[in-house]
């Protein structure tokens, strides 16, 4: 290990200690974490595994409102509501996208487990929504067909 690297690690360690002690604010005032593994997963199953949400149970209380056919895959509007009591998180996946996980929303006291979002879909696919409540996971899926309109270009 070279000196420069050792120096950096030392500095990082010092910074981490200061951060932990609450003496330094993070540069972005975010507790920003981004689940690289889950978002980098190439299958819905792997993404859910990374989220700790494998084997969700099908539930009618997870409701997906979306068009059956999208005139263009660049913007597909999806509205999601979970009426599973105590829902704290909703994950949205597009099964056939290169990286299926497209969003994960954590809801704290004060927010309803509801989100409306526009997603990109590469092709017709199932949209899979997993709601987490009380450590258990609930899933609903909806097929959305994606078409192309217009003259192209």
């Amino acid at each position, binding site marked *: 290990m070279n000196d420069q690297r050792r120096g950096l690690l030392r500095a990082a360690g010092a910074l981490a200690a200061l951060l932990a002690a609450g003496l330094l604010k993070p540069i972005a005032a*975010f507790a920003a974490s981004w689940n690289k593994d889950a978002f980098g997963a190439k299958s819905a199953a792997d993404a859910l595994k990374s989220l700790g949400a494998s084997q969700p149970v099908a539930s009618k209380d997870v409701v997906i409102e979306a068009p059956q056919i999208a005139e263009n895959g660049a913007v597909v509007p999806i509205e999601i509501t979970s009426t599973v009591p105590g829902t704290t998180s909703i994950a949205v996946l597009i099964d056939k996208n290169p990286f299926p996980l497209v969003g994960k929303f954590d809801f704290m006291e*004060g*927010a309803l487990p509801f989100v409306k979002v526009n997603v990109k879909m590469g092709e017709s696919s199932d949209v899979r929504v997993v709601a987490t409540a009380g450590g258990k996971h609930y899933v609903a899926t909806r097929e959305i067909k994606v078409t192309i309109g217009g003259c192209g270009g």
Partner: protein
Amino acid sequence: MAAGPMKMRATLLGGVTDVRVLMSHPMETGQRKGPDGQLVPLHFIQNVTVKVNGKTVVEGQISQAISRNPVFSFRIKGGAKGDKIEVSWLDNKGETNKTETAVA
């Protein structure tokens, strides 16, 4: 590209505050070829935070598969006219933006 404008509307209806926020962001997937034939690098919002009167109520992590110029809707339990709603984002380049509005 500098962070573009953001716009938000928070409306109280039937005991629920509907928050609709518009964000200006290219949300590049890293798969798109630019006019020079080169791939445009990955550049997308990763985190979205919603606060009510300074308290975080929604933490969103999103991918590059969210549409360009993202539009989100969230719902807050209750809420009163004048409550301060703030939505902020952070992208993979460390750029941020935020907007704030009062519940109407």
